[in-house]
C-alpha cells in the first residue's frame, strides 16, 4: 500500500479536506476537487490510483462525472459516496463501472477496506 494516490471529489470541501488529512495520517497521498469538472481535469493531468466520488453535487453530477472518468480511464477504480438513503443511484453507478458505494457519514475503516479491495482487484485485472 505504498504511495497510493487518492482523488477526492465532493462539493463539501470541509469534508474532503478532513478526509484527506486522515488519509495522510495513514500514509496515503490524496488530492481534493470541489466539483466534477475540476476532478476530471485533474485526472486528465495526473495519475491516480483510486477516486472517491460523491454522487450529489451541483453542476456535473456524480454519475456524469463517473461516466467521464470511465471515458478517460476505464480501469481507474471509483468508490462512490452518497448522502442519500436510496441505494438506487449507487446501484446505477455500480452498473456504470463504479467499484462500490458507501453511505455518508462514513466509517473510515470500512472505506479503507473498500479501497484496499478495489486496488487489489484492479491490480489483478
Amino acid at each position, binding site marked *: 500500500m505504498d504511495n497510493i494516490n487518492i482523488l477526492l471529489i465532493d462539493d463539501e470541501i*470541509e469534508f474532503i479536506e478532513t478526509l484527506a488529512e486522515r488519509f495522510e495520517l495513514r500514509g496515503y497521498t490524496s488530492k481534493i476537487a470541489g466539483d466534477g469538472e475540476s476532478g476530471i481535469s485533474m485526472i486528465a493531468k495526473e495519475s491516480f490510483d483510486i477516486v472517491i466520488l460523491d454522487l450529489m453535487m451541483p453542476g456535473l453530477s456524480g454519475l456524469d462525472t463517473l461516466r467521464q472518468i470511465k471515458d478517460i480511464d476505464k480501469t481507474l477504480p471509483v468508490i462512490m459516496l452518497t448522502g442519500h*438513503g436510496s441505494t*438506487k443511484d449507487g*446501484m446505477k453507478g455500480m452498473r456504470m463501472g463504479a467499484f462500490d458505494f458507501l*453511505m455518508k*457519514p*462514513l466509517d*473510515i475503516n470500512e472505506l479503507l477496506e473498500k479501497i484496499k479491495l478495489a486496488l487489489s482487484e484492479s491490480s489483478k485485472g
Partner: protein
Amino acid sequence: MFRKITDTVFFLNTACQDHYCVLKRNIIVIMLLITILPLSTMVVINYFQYKSHLKDQIIAPLYAMADKTKHSFELFLDQRLAIIRFISTTYNFRDLTNEMNIKKILISLKKECCGFVDIGLINSQGELISYAGPYSLSDKNYSEQISFQETQIKGQYISNVFLGFRKYPHIVIAVQHLTENGQTWILRATIDTAFFDTLISSMGLSRQTDAFLIDKNGILQTNSLYYGKTLEKCPLELSKITFRSNNFEGKDNENRNIIIASSAFSIADYILVIVQPQSVALKSWYALKTEIIIIFLISIAIIIFTVLKITNVLIIRIKTSDEHRENVISELQHAQKLSSIGRLAAGVAHEINNPLAIINEKAGLMSDLIEFSKNFDKKSKFNDLTSSILNSVKRCRKITHRLLGFSKRIDIKIEPLNVNHIINEVLDFMGKDILYRKIDVNPILPDSLVTIESDHGQIQQILLNLLSNAFAAVEEFGEVEIKSKNLDNGGIRVKIIDNGCGIPKNVIKNIFDPFFSTKKEKGTGLGLSITYGIIKKLGGEISVDSTPGEGSVFTFDLPEKPNDLEMAHG
C-alpha cells in the same frame, strides 16, 4: 310551504336539509308532475268524452222508442177516426137517426175493432139525435161542451181521458160530416182506453222504466208505475216537457235521478213520456266510470311507488358515487401529503447527512491525531470524547437512514431479504405508538426464517398497514402477536394476531374491497385494499379470520420469489 307539503306527502324528513334531500324531493316532484299531469288530463278528457258519447248512445234508443210508441198510439187513434169518418160518409143523416141502424153499426164495430163503447149522432145544434150504447143519454145537448165546439171548428176531435159510467177510463172521438146541402152533423164515439195499456206494455220496457201518457195539463192518461193512476196529476216537474219531442235529465218527486224522453202527439193533446232512473239507464257508464277511476288510482299508486323507488335508488347511487369520489380525492390528498412529507423528510435527512459526515470526519481526525501522536496528555479522556461523538453520529445516521428508507420506497425493487428484519424495523418505527397505547407486542420470529426475494419497502408498507389495524382494533393493554414461519414451497408466512374487537361476518367479505371502511370519516377504505394489491403484486396471498369480540388473525404468505416481476436487482 311547497317544501312542507312535498315533505309530508313523500315522507321526507323535514329536518333533513342536505342537498340529497332537496335533490330527492325535486326529482320526485318533477317525475310525478311529468307523469301524473298528462295521465290526469287524459283521464279527465276521456271521462267527459265517454260520458257524452255513452249518454247519447243510451238515450237515443229511449227517445226512438218513445217516438215509435207514439206512432202506434197515433195509428190506433187514426184508425178509429177513419172508421167513424167512413161510417159518416157511408150512411146519411136519416139512416143514422134510425136507432136500429145505429145499434147495428155499434155491434159491427164492437165485433170488428176493439175499444168501441158507444156511438151517437149529434146534429148541428148539439142535440143527440140517436145513440147506441150502454147509457141512457137521449135528449142530451152537447152544444156547450168543448168536444162539440172543437169538432165544429176542426172537423174532428179526440178528447182527453175521462172516467165513464162503469168507472173505466174512456176517450171520445168525434167526426163532423158536411152534407151536400150544407148541413153538418157529428158522429161521436166513446172508446175504452184499455188498449193504451196494452200498447205501453208491448214496448217491452225494463222493470224500473215507466211509460205513460199525459195531457197538456200533466194529468195522467194511462196508469203509471211510479207516478199515479189514470186521471191523477203527474208529480213530475214537467215544465220542460213541450209538444216537441225531447229528452232531459232531472229528479223525480222521490229525488231519484231520472232521464225523461217524451214525444208529443200530433193528432191529440197527448204526450208520451218514458221515465228511466239514471241508475238503470247509465249502468254501463257507471261501470266504465268506476273502471276508469280504479285504473287511474292504481296507475297513480304504481307511478308514485315506482318514482319513489327509482328516486331512492338513484339518490343512493349518487350518494355512493359522491362518497367514492370524495374518498378518492381525500386519498389523493393523503397520498400527496405523504409524498410531500416524504420529500421533506428525505431533504432534511440528506441535508443533515452532509454536516453529519463533516462532524464524523472531524471527530475521526481528532481521534486519529490522538492515536497517531505519541505523547498526548489525557489521551484516554480525548479518546472517550471522540468515540462518544462518533457514536452519536452513528445514532444520527441510523435515524436519517431510516427516514430516507421510509420515504423512498416507491418503485418495486426485488432483493433478497429477511422478513424478520423488516418486522423489527416496522416495530421500531411504531415503537412510540406501542408504548403510548401500552400494547403488549409479542413477536415470535424464528432465526431459521428463510431469505426470500421481494421488495423491502412494499413489505414494510404491508406490515405497517396490518399492524396499524391490529393496534387500532385492540384496547389499552391489548395483545398483538406477530409470528413468522417457513413454508414448504420455499416461501414464508406471517401471522398478525390481535385480541381486539374482531370483525363481523358481513364486513369480512368486503374487507379487501377498495373504499370499504368501517372507520367512517377516519379511514379511506384503501389501507387493506392497498395491502391486498401489494401482496398480490408480490405473488402472495392474504386471508383473514375473525371472531367478533375475540380478535382477528391476518395471515399473509409471500413466495420465495415473485414470478412475473422483472428483477430490478443489479
